[in-house]
Each structure stands twice: as structure tokens, then as C-alpha cells.
């Protein structure tokens, strides 16, 4: 089951050098090898603004492509360094990089660093050193040393890497004569995790970046600030059951999936809810007061000991459409509750009964109802492609 494989929560926060319209750091990531490999690249271009962004963006783009196609790292780095345009002012071409290449199933990772502050691996609050670290130097670029670290991420570990806008924050101020440094950032992250052990990658990266900024004089961004956090954690599983099973004798196996095995369960469909209440000896509570605020969809209800219950096809169609247009500000309550649950989950298990309700095909209905399977296919596609969710599909 995908629920057994840890989930890679990868987020970053970037703050732009004061007075510039573009960030001189760039971050990109990609999935490779059929989604089993996460590759993330952070680069800090020389200087700031558009010129720096160009250098950084060229570096991340090339590095990502070279990594995806498994090109040797030394040769890749040489090509990158050869390709970067030379700065007119400084007569050099330069962009740092940190590349993280991780197998999502095992947590085995390699970090390649050139010029950026060294990464931090945390297990809870404890820092984990890499078990192997070696230096690689190109003959043609002897001053650009690369460090290659091998590490093992366990479920719950975090990997933090940043640009020097973080570690050099506060430089020259009374408190941080030499800047916040890696040690300051490490202590801050450990303290935050101690206070909030499940802090998300997004919140942690934002906290670090903004704290770095706050250490600068007048809270200014005197350099571009980027912080990336990779949180390798237990996935949150949402199971959506919709549609009655094709064979009635499968009802109890179908209903059992509402009772156990997921962090959260949503039932979409009145008949589906009836089958589950019958099999699990529970009941649905629908609050008629919700009608007034339920918008253009039937109101959601609650099934005792299970979770949210909504109408089926109309609600799922709305959810899918909202996901496709990336906006659910005006969505009715039932759809919005499903969307919120989806947002907070990593793995979406769609359990789909395939029995067709003939009444739904009545041409006299005011609008065309989608066939459940078509909606589910659309939902799966948008969740996987646009929202990086792992989706499983089980038909009954």
C-alpha cells in the first residue's frame, strides 16, 4: 500500500534582495524514475536581481536535467560552470548549488554541494551527520570544490538547506558579528521542532527565512534568502468511498474500508452512505440548518465513528472542477470540506463502487450528470499532476 511508503514534503521560502524585482536564488525540483526519485536543486547566482536569477536559473535547470539523466556529476558541474555567462563587473561566472537526490521509497539520499552553506539533517531535534562525505574537484575549475554526502533519511527526518542569505544574516551587527551562521540556523530549527514536533516543511522554511531576515539591520533583505525543507514523514491518508459496489455481496468488504486503515474517511453519495451505515451499524446526521449555508450542493453530514458524508456525483464534480481551476473560494460547504481534507492529505485512496444509478441517466434531469468513473478519472489526473498527491484507485 502507498500508505506504507514515507511521503516527501518539499517546500521552500524565498525572500528577494531589497530593491530587486527578481530573486537571485532559484529552486527547482522534479520527480524522476517514475516518481521514485526526488531531485531538488537550489542555486544562488552571483550578485542579485535579474542577472543573478539568470545564473541561478540556468544552474538549477541544467543540474536538474543532468541529474534526471544520471550524467556523471563532475562532468555536469563542468558543463554548468562553462555555460554560465561571465559577469561584466566581476569578470567571473558563478552560481552555487545544492543538489539533493533521494530515493523516496528507501530514504537513501545524496547531497552534492558547491558553494552553498552545508545542509542540515535533523531526526527530531538531533542533528545527523552524513555517513560518508567526500570532496570532488574539477581539474579545470580547481577552486570550485564540491562536497558529496551520502545520507540515510528515516521516517520523520528533515533536511534543511539554504542560501548564504540565511547563514550570513545579521552579519556585522553587534550580536552576529559573523552572521547567523549555520550553527545559528541549526539551533533555531531545533528549538522550533522541540516546540512543534510536527511542524510542516512549509512552516519551518518560512520561519527560518523570516527569522534570518529579521536579524539584518532594519529587517532588510541585504541578500537573497532561500530556505528549503524536505520533510520525510509518514503520509496522511484520506480515503474517499463513492458509489455502491456492483455486486451486493461486496457491500460488507466495501463498508469495512470506511471503518479502518486511513487517517480520514469521506463518503460521497447517499446510497453509498446507506450501505455503510447498514453494514457498520452506524448512522448519518444531516443538519438541516446547514441547508441555508450549503450553497449549490446538498449539505454535508457526519457519520458517527467514520467521518464526513456528502452527496456523490454533483459534489465530486464540483471538487474536481475546483481543483482543475485551482480556486475554491466560492465553493459550497460540502465541496470545500472535501477540498480541505485533500489539501491536508498526501495519499488519496479512491474506493469506487461501479454500480450505475439509472435515475442519474434520466434525460429529464436539469443538468447532465457525469458517469462516476469519468469523474474519478479526472479527479485522479488532477490530483496527481497538479497537486503531487499519491492516488490509488480500487473498484468495487
Amino acid at each position, binding site marked *: 500500500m502507498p500508505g506504507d511508503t514515507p511521503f516527501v514534503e518539499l517546500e521552500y521560502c524565498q525572500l528577494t534582495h531589497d530593491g530587486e524585482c527578481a530573486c537571485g536564488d532559484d529552486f527547482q525540483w522534479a520527480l524522476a524514475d517514475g516518481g521514485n526519485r526526488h531531485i531538488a536543486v537550489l542555486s544562488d547566482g552571483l550578485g542579485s536581481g535579474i542577472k543573478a536569477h539568470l545564473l541561478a536559473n540556468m544552474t538549477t535547470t541544467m543540474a536538474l536535467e543532468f541529474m534526471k539523466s544520471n550524467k556523471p556529476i563532475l562532468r555536469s558541474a563542468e558543463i554548468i560552470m562553462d555555460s554560465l555567462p561571465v559577469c561584466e563587473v566581476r569578470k567571473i561566472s558563478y552560481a552555487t548549488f545544492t543538489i539533493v537526490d533521494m530515493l523516496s521509497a528507501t530514504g537513501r539520499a545524496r547531497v552534492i554541494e558547491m558553494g552553498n552553506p552545508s545542509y542540515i539533517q535533523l531526526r527530531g531535534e538531533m542533528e545527523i551527520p552524513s555517513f560518508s562525505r567526500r570532496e570532488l574537484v574539477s581539474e579545470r575549475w580547481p577552486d570550485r570544490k564540491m562536497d558529496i554526502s551520502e545520507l540515510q533519511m528515516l521516517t520523520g527526518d528533515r533536511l534543511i538547506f539554504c542560501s548564504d542569505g540565511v547563514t550570513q544574516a545579521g552579519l556585522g551587527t553587534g550580536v552576529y558579528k559573523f552572521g547567523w551562521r549555520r550553527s545559528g540556523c541549526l539551533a533555531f530549527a531545533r528549538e522550533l521542532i522541540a516546540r512543534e514536533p510536527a511542524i510542516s516543511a512549509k512552516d519551518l522554511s518560512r520561519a527560518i527565512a523570516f527569522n534570518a531576515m529579521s536579524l539584518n539591520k532594519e529587517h532588510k533583505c541585504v541578500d537573497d534568502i532561500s530556505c528549503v525543507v524536505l520533510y520525510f514523514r509518514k503520509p496522511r491518508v484520506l480515503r474517499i468511498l463513492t458509489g455502491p459496489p456492483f455486486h451486493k455481496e461486496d457491500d460488507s468488504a466495501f463498508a469495512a474500508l470506511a471503518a479502518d486503515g486511513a487517517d480520514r474517511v469521506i463518503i460521497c453519495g*447517499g446510497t453509498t452512505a446507506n450501505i455503510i451505515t447498514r453494514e457498520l451499524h452506524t448512522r448519518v446526521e*444531516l443538519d438541516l440548518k446547514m*441547508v441555508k449555508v450549503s450553497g449549490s450542493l446538498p449539505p454535508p453530514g457526519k457519520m458517527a465513528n467514520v467521518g464526513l458524508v456528502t452527496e456523490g456525483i454533483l459534489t465530486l464534480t464540483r471538487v474536481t472542477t475546483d481543483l482543475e481551476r485551482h480556486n475554491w473560494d466560492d465553493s459550497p460547504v460540502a465541496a470545500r470540506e472535501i477540498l480541505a481534507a485533500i489539501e491536508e492529505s498526501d495519499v488519496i485512496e479512491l474506493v469506487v463502487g461501479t454500480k450505475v444509478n439509472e435515475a442519474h441517466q434520466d434525460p429529464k434531469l436539469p443538468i447532465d450528470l457525469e458517469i462516476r468513473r469519468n469523474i474519478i478519472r479526472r479527479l485522479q489526473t488532477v490530483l496527481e499532476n497538479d497537486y503531487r498527491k499519491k492516488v490509488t484507485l480500487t473498484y468495487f
Partner: protein
Amino acid sequence: MQDKIKLEICCGTTCYMLGAAELMTIEDTLPDAWKDRVDVFAIPCMDLCTREDIGRAPFVRIDGEVMGNATLETVHRALSKLLPIEPEEV
């Protein structure tokens, strides 16, 4: 005190599209004299829309009795048979 009348409204897809959305607001339309005499419930689905012998969606149940093609007007009329509005005392 007489038993309350149980009015159940189907909120399934077909019923909802064919008028249950409006039926769910019935509490607001009941005469004051009936308000304490009718309990309104929303049901996820009564599974009746595929049956052809009992009318069309939307469906309601009044004290267990199924009623098809339900509208606010027809439900009011059905309730009025069970709950005549007593003339105000002079």
C-alpha cells in the same frame, strides 16, 4: 401532547436536482401552529429514484408514508390532512 409528525426529505442526487433543495427549506414555510408538531429530517438517500411504481423524485416520507413528486405545496397539503389548523379561539 400529540406525537410529532416525522417528515423526511431525501437529499440524494436525483432528488436534490429535481427539487429537494427547495424542500429542505420547508421549516421556514410551516405555519406557526405546525412548527412544534412537525420534525423535519434530511436523509442522505432513500434509494427510491430507480423505482418506477411510486412516482418521481424528489421523494419525502411523512410518518413513514412515501410521497413522490414532492413540492412544498404538495407536502403542505399532505401535512394539512394530518394537522388541520385549528381555528383560533374567539
